[in-house]
């Protein structure tokens, strides 16, 4: 209060500006690279009934308007309430988390189940593996995916190989879920932007899951915590925490961890992506379908990055004969490389164009360059067009 009163006496040094300049800007004349209008995204549930229909619920099933962090919070709440062995810990989770995902959970479930850990990622993951090895269901939070690397040894050499090396002893750490915010956020630069999923997809034993929306996040996270006996890396696109809003069923539900989802049916081209870039893909497809009469593009959300749903992708590409893979992380040995190589093996005779990859360039996420680095609507549009014209 004291500080507030004093603040009035301090003359304003900086004049307010209407435009934020700390991040690279969209061109005001942009025809393609326009901001995402979440209210118009076709795959979000904008009405209660569309959500009910999608989840096969009755007309009076309770539905809530939620953003991504709210949906994650609801899933965590349900898991903690359902199973006493569920624990939630990490850096700063007790007061609600730096992204508000664990808001209110300490008050309801106590500091023995929701707690802050010392600032040590290898400690958090090692501790979580041990909890899981003794039958608990720990949900460990890494504050940013960029900071998971100190825990890489624990994840790759320990969590992933735990069941395999225990063999007939029956030991495993399948109750483990490691949550981490990932992806670009406009101004995250080198260490608040990364998407290291491809590093985990090279590790047998780990499940890697990335949701695209609140309703999907809720179902996938609930599956990861309560229904999976394999360790899960659960990556949350942080740019969607507040931005993506939709109607979400209030009652708990699960979504399988190894199935892709067709977001839009099409016959001429398959676009495969996951997480935040799906919004860009959707906008790019809308623009291209407007520009090319009669064109129909199929959009697929991988959801599970590893183990992934090869069959669904093959079925789609064997129908369309053309494919574009889109992700934010770097080109070389990214998820797109695996998907493209698999399409080459599984749909060779049907392919009418090379499989295209629209990805981050082979560089680091430099602060001011973000808009030029990650896939945008124009690049996805261009790549689809060239694939169709091949």
């Amino acid at each position, binding site marked *: 209060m004291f500080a507030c009163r004093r603040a009035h006496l301090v003359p304003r040094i900086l004049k307010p500006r209407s435009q934020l300049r700390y991040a690279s800007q969209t061109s005001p004349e942009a025809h393609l690279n326009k901001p995402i209008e979440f209210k118009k995204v076709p795959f979000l549930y904008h009405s209660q009934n569309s959500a009910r229909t999608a989840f096969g619920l009755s007309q009076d099933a309770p539905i809530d308007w939620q953003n991504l962090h709210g949906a994650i919070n609801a899933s965590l709440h349900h898991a903690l309430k359902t199973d006493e062995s569920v624990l939630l810990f990490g850096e700063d989770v007790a007061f609600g988390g730096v992204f508000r995902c664990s808001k209110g959970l300490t008050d309801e479930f106590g500091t023995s189940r929701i707690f802050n850990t010392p600032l040590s990622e290898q400690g958090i993951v090692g501790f979580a593996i041990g909890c899981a*090895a003794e039958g608990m269901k720990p949900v460990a939070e890494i504050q940013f995916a960029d900071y998971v690397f100190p825990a890489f040894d624990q994840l790759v050499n320990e969590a992933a190989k735990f069941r395999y090396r225990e063999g007939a002893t029956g030991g495993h750490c399948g109750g483990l879920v490691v949550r981490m915010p990932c992806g670009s956020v406009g101004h995250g630069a080198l260490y608040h932007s990364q998407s290291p999923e491809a590093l985990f997809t090279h590790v047998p034993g780990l499940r890697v899951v990335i949701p695209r929306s609140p309703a999907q996040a809720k179902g996938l996270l609930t599956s990861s915590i309560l229904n999976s006996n394999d360790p899960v890396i659960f990556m949350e696109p942080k740019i969607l925490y507040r931005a993506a809003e939709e109607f979400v069923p209030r009652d708990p539900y699960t979504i399988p961890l190894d199935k892709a989802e067709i977001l839009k049916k099409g016959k001429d081209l398959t676009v495969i992506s996951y997480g935040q870039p799906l919004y860009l893909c959707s906008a790019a497809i809308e623009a291209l379908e407007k520009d090319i009469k009669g064109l129909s593009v199929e959009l697929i959300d991988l959801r599970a990055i590893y183990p992934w749903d*090869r069959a669904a992708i093959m079925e789609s590409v064997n129908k369309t004969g053309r494919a574009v893979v889109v992700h934010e992380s770097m080109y070389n040995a990214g998820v797109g490389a695996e998907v493209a190589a698999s399409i080459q093996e599984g749909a060779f005779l049907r392919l009418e164009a090379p499989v295209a990859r629209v990805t981050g360039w082979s560089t680091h996420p430099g602060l001011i360059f973000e808009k030029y680095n990650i896939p945008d609507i124009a690049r996805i549009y261009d790549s689809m067009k060239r694939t169709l014209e091949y």
Partner: protein
Amino acid sequence: MHKPGIRWASDSWSSGPAQKVGSDSVNFPGALNSKFTATMKFQNPAEATAMPTYRIMDADGNIIDNTRDPRAAPDEEVIKWYRNMLTVSIMDLIMFDAQRQGRTSFYMVSAGEEGIAVGSASALSPDDVCFLQYREQGVLIQRGFTLKEMMSQLFSNKDDHGKGRNMPVHYGSGKLNVHTISSPLATQIPQASGAAYALKMQRLINPNVPPRIVACYFGEGAASEGDFHAALNIAATKSCPIVFVCRNNGFAISTASIEQYKGDGIASRGLGYGIDTIRVDGNDIFAVREVMLEARKRALEGDCKPILVEAMSYRVSHHSTSDDSFAYRAKREVEEWKRRDNPITRLRKWMENRGIWDEDKEKEARASIRKEVLREFSAAEKVQKPPLRAMFEDVYEEITPEAQEQMKELKRLIERYPNEYNVKEHEGGIKTLE
């Protein structure tokens, strides 16, 4: 979830005024109760005396304080510990030779450290959970791991709990609550902290669950890993019922402890984490056992807490079968340790002084253990290897469609080139790939 009478460490911090009038200290949140001083003095570790090493009997097996009964166990128990130490030591010799003959790929002996393993394990309850590094064969044997189980693991046969996936000496047992050993050093330490927290939570959920601790073993070299730091810090802040047992044997492969750290061993670090700590003579099985009994008790008191035990010893053997330690240390020094002080001869001298052991008993024990080891050795060597299917199982709970395709592909390849592979040594042959 909160039960009356249990104080949670995370509940204890409370904010207060920065400084009371006339106070001799500021309530800095980062260091409570630190008094101001007008004397500028850097604390110098070299000025402190080294933490003492607790022992009960000397190198000749004489009890130092004769007013005490050091054993807290009947003679038969002591003889059992002795035989368990002897078993480890005899198996070491046989398996080292077996590796030299190319009959197994790898082995690690634990000569000089049998007392730490057997002594500490004798103080544990069978329900307690153990995480090992790799030089703790005595823990397994003391907990009831059979020679057959050991040989099955060393020969990677179909009876190996690890299904032939791990290198030799990477033992584990679900029945005995010993998690399977993994090669990456120190990774088990934060896991053990987490496991201890799980045990504490399970008792909070269901008070009928018996109180249990985790015993976590590691060497002084592994204590240089970041995971050691992470583990002790989190175990202290979360009040975990765990006993960390550091085997300080003076060497990490060729690196002597003088190159490993500059402080007073590993024990001095425990205090920095706010952990009750003790240093014990690892060649004195009575001291190790007594320390472990007390550590276990303290770990479970009140809200629970971690304890650090630094057990001192000397790695009499080579690091492993892939190491010739005389390349970096004098043979004479090793021989001296072997002859003058080791846990087995020390206990033997005590037993002889007490009149419960003699040369005949020693000969009989060595002969019968040797015979049993050799019997299990030749039996295990003849047993078939695990099924080929085991290569793909347990990566995930279920075999994924991707792995199923690869099993099919491997089967096709073996059928196409049958002479290139000896699948008959695997139980069930090629059929298990279906």
